[in-house]
């Protein structure tokens, strides 16, 4: 049996190489790495509101270094128009007056108090820091987690379909029906190759984007989550590829998954937006599992793993059933 599995595995490997699958994966690895290191990290530097002061008579004596001085009333107006989050202080009439563009009520309140506090002698209090991640580490982990989730959900799903449709066209399933092999092997070798390639992809992506030092401690947990996700996505891809008529229909199904399934998950897991129904979304839990692995938060309950394993078992049984049906139809 092992010999058969090995030869099937080798054949699948050759299929993937000829289908440029590995080339595509490494291309995306390079693309993602460039994006994280040269794009994403640079975007993530939101500063607190800028405060601009117009004070020709120098009436304010204790001005914080965070305040930027402007030379005229017009300059104050233009700079505020550009930076609508900024706050302008006009002290030309002696008593300081605040000018700014309307935001939400609470933000306005905070901007007023913050701007005025900068005209007072500064206090020397700093917030207590209890976490271990710096903002850059957090940003790197977050984006790596997102990209990995997206890539595995997409690559596992699409890749397996691309390979299977090709094999379907070549009549491989028909040949399998008459081969003296256990039918599971066909599915197992497909799963194995996608699992392996996903794991390698996860390791490379994490090492390149999170950094070698941080990766060492989180890698085992990340790999477990990656394996679960990869198995589920490959099995789902197999079912869809066996059921659907052609690759065009499959792409529609894929688009559906990529856009309308992933969006609420990303929104809910990465921002403060909480959707009430998100707990019924299966991918939310998987994504959170991956994210917790990246941030080293041990929050996964046994129920989660049980759910994942059940899902994999059910999907596997489903694939087997559909595969046998397909073989009967073909042969």
């Amino acid at each position, binding site marked *: 049996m092992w010999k058969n599995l090995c030869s099937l595995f080798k054949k699948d490997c050759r299929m993937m190489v000829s289908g440029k699958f590995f080339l595509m994966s490494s291309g995306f690895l390079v693309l993602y790495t460039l994006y994280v290191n040269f794009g994403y990290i640079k975007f993530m530097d939101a500063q607190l509101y800028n405060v601009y002061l117009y004070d020709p008579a120098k009436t304010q004596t204790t001005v914080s270094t965070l305040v930027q001085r402007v030379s005229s009333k017009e300059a104050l107006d233009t700079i505020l128009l550009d930076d609508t989050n900024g706050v302008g202080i006009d002290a030309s009439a002696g008593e300081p007056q605040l000018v700014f563009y309307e935001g939400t009520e609470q933000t306005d309140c905070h901007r007023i108090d913050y701007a*005025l506090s900068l005209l007072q002698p500064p206090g020397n209090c700093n917030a207590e820091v209890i976490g271990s991640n710096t903002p850059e580490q957090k940003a790197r982990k977050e984006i790596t987690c997102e990209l990995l989730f997206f890539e595995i959900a997409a690559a596992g799903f699409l890749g397996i379909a691309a390979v299977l449709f090709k094999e379907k066209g070549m009549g491989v399933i028909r040949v399998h029906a008459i081969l003296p092999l256990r039918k599971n092997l066909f599915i197992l070798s497909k799963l194995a190759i996608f699992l392996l390639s996903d794991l390698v992809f996860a390791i490379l992506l994490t090492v390149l984007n999170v950094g070698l030092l941080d990766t060492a401690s989180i890698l085992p947990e990340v790999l477990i989550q990656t394996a679960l996700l990869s198995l589920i996505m490959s099995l789902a891809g197999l079912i869809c590829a066996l059921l659907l008529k052609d690759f065009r229909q499959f792409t529609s199904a894929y688009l559906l998954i990529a856009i309308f399934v992933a969006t609420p998950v990303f929104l809910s897991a990465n921002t403060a937006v909480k959707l009430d129904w998100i707990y019924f979304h299966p991918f939310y839990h998987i994504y959170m599992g991956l994210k917790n692995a990246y941030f080293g938060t041990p929050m996964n309950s046994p129920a989660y793993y049980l759910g994942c394993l059940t899902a994999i078992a059910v999907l596997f049984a489903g694939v087997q059933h559909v595969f046998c049906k397909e073989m009967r139809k073909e042969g």
Partner: protein
Amino acid sequence: MTSLRCQLKNVLHDKFCLMTFLLPIVVASALNFVGSIDLSTLGELHFGVLEDDLPTRTTTWLERYGSVTIYPTMEELMDAIQEPSTNLIGVESDGSGIKTIISGDELDMFRQTADTLPNLYEQRNAAGQTKVHILECPNVMAGFHDMFIAVTLIVAMFMGCTFNAMNMISEKEDGVAFINEILPMTQSQYIMQKLFVGFICGCLSSIITVCICFRLSLQNAALMLVLIVLSALAAAWIGLFIGRASNGLMAGVVYIKIVMLLFIAVPILSFLVGISQPLLSAIFYVVPSQATFEGIMALSTGNGTIAVKDIFILLAHCIIWLLLYWENLHPAS
């Protein structure tokens, strides 16, 4: 005409294809009627306090700046502060003042807020007499809802592109492309037919989405119609281009994936980051969905002039894609 009818019949038989075109409409109506996504909380401040730790008037003072959540135990408060997806600032009493706790991975904005908060608390009685002049500004946060609708519209548009590309690739794989070459059919007829289905369906689904989501004046509605037609056309052209350029399923999928990422990511990025550099924003217009997105957002706030500019950009896109495709069909040699 007969062949066009055949193409359309082909689509109508394909239930899955129909579903894809209906999907943006369903999502748009869900966004419109449910409206459960409240993005206005994104840029706001969130504070976490321990039960029975701060006096009520301090909590009330905090509530002026942002939402306050009360946690029963210290562990829960610490977990909430450490949670990577939120920017919660923990507030504790410290003698007569307060002190703040953060996890250290927040954006600078939240760290600075936490650093200055105790200071603000000390000076809370000093403010109040200062004259404040608040300038009118279109509500930035309301734009997020429109952003979702605009993205849904772009997706509706993109379906036409995918459909065309996949249609051509599957024809290539099935060998229909060879048959097409010997059929008595001119290139323009072929392009028309291929363009037709993706374009019409993308258009229809976008128009219905717009009807559900926006209440526009007659003039703006006309502008929106032109915007949709042009962007669906540009998307359909790109689809044809992808279909022609890719020689296999896998290559086609890679191209589509890249184009889809660009189509959705570029406008969202420029909207959220707010690109002000003229050169950079000009580069962003290379992706047609950027112009569409900007046009839709402008029309949703009733700004016709920007939409007209975007219509011209899209028109340029359509012409450029047409020329590129033509060049590809008939190489100069």
